[in-house]
């Protein structure tokens, strides 16, 4: 979804800094507003989960197991008599935490690799072959294998997904570094005898940040889906921890008789990912209309 904004490509208006303009453009787009709003709403719910949840997400009332949504349990209960509303709220919180940390983790790995590979042709081949090897692993398989070796925990899910998505980040960064390093100010800096390190940090890196941010929102979305999938396959967060994937996995055998257990976390995941995707897409258009990138899963 890329639209041409005549104003965006044209000469900057006098007096207004370009980043303010960018954000203005961004905020004028309904998709961005909708996506960002949806995402913010869920961030709010997740942050306030401990205060909004009527009871602890682990508290069991065996006698009330599989109660449909009612005044007492707004979203019903699961097979242990745990309040689903409390679990879903905490699940959103955990998904957000995992999503954000996966973004940080995969950027921490992918960004330096991409930067070095793109800027230093000597390293390019080695680093990118390594990334290719990781990419040649289907994401699901790599994540499952990593989880099996590491053991179930939220931290390990973050590590596994971070490793899975790091090559994507590296590729994106390398792609834009290859473009940026041809820019005049970079060649000029090099001609002036500036060393590689400072050039990379001061001139190349800042100009690669837009695609990193855009890719970051998509990785965030993938990580939310990834957590759900891993937990659903039994290779994710320990099953008693209220994560959206765990709630779905636990409710699966009750889909016929207690559909509320799977409906609400499913919708929560969808809203979260939809919000991120809409926001990320709008962001991409606004930050760099020329950027072409694939979003393969």
């Amino acid at each position: 979804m890329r639209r041409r904004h005549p104003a965006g490509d044209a000469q900057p208006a006098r007096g207004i800094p370009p980043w303010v303009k960018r954000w203005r453009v961004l905020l004028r787009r309904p998709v961005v507003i909708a996506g960002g709003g949806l995402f913010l709403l869920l961030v709010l719910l997740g942050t306030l989960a401990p205060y909004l949840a009527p009871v602890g997400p682990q508290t069991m009332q065996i006698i009330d197991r599989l109660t449909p949504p009612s005044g007492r349990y707004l979203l019903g209960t699961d097979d242990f008599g745990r309040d689903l509303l409390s679990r879903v709220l905490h699940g959103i919180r955990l998904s957000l935490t995992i999503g954000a940390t996966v973004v940080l983790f995969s950027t921490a790995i992918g960004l330096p690799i991409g930067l070095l590979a793109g800027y230093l042709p000597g390293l390019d081949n080695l680093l990118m072959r390594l990334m290719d090897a990781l990419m040649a692993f289907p994401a699901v398989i790599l994540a499952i294998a990593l989880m099996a070796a590491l053991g179930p925990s939220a931290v390990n899910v973050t590590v596994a997904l971070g490793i899975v998505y790091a090559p994507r980040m590296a590729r994106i960064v390398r792609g834009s570094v290859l473009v940026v390093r041809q820019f005049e100010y970079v060649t000029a800096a090099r001609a002036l005898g500036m060393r590689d390190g400072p050039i990379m940090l001061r001139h190349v890196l800042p100009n690669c940040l837009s695609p990193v941010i855009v890719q970051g929102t998509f990785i965030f979305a993938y990580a939310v889906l990834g957590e759900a999938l891993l937990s659903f396959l039994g290779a994710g967060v320990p099953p008693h921890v209220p994560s959206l994937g765990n709630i779905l996995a636990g409710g699966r055998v009750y889909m016929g008789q207690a559909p509320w257990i799977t409906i609400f976390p499913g919708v929560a995941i969808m809203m979260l990912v939809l919000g991120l995707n809409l926001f990320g897409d709008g962001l991409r258009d606004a930050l760099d209309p020329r950027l072409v990138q694939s979003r393969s899963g």
Partner: protein
Amino acid sequence: MLAYVARRLVAMVPIVILVGTIVFLLIHLTPGDPVVIMLGPDASEEAVTRLRTELGLDAPVYRQWTRWFQRVLVGDLGTSIFFGVPVTETIRRHLPPTIYLSALAILVAVGIGVPAGIISAVRRGSALDQAVTMTAFLGVSIPEFWLALNLVLLFAVNLQLLPVAGYAPPTAGLAVSLRYLVLPAFTMGFVQSALIARMTRAAMLEVVVADYVRTARAKGLPSPRVTMRHIFPNALITVITVIGIIFSVMMGGNVIAETIFTIPGLGQLLMSSVLRRDYPVIQGIVLLVAAAYVVINLLVDVAYALVDPRIRY
């Protein structure tokens, strides 16, 4: 061109070795013992030790690794611990369903995605465009397994229109086998069609403003013809790329659909092999999928050259 292909094939070797080593280390680091699973829960320690020795699982990991790699080099992937059958044989049996399902899913994805992408590009900004765009966004946002489960509940359990799960090869009759594969193919295809629609649309919009399109319009060519003759071929490259990537992802990523619909493909085999710690099978599948990924990527690049005469290697 041939030289290029040869170079790429050579470059494939280190990747596959690297992948093989990573997976070997990963699964041997994983706790769990295939022998205990095979002999059953009440097996004696003595029987377990005996079988471990028989299978060579008592050797140090690096010895097992070199032993495995030596055999891989001559095309021998070893024997499944659980089934006692050669891994190549096990994989060969599970490969057709995966390929068949992936092909159908891609058919669905392209069948929905490309027209949707073209329509929304041509009618850019219209209500139709926005509807397509929103559906596409929903498509990439729905957890695939959740969609699958809900489809099963609706079409198989409540409406009883389709079987709940299972698989029949096309040799059992196309109609029969399609009945089994409609739901899984649709689930997988729908999620991917969103991606294809968006990529198609983006690729087409890129050239709408290009000079040669403007020229064509100026010459008075009718609009649909311009679309199909001048704009779509440009989008085709993108579509091929996406299909290639999707196919390679599906080869190993069918885990979800194959588990939920009990389709005896590679994904299901892999999942149960992980649970049983059937090391040779896991290694074999990952190696195969990694090789497929590399080869498919190469084919995509070759296809570029065929579609777009400007690209030369």
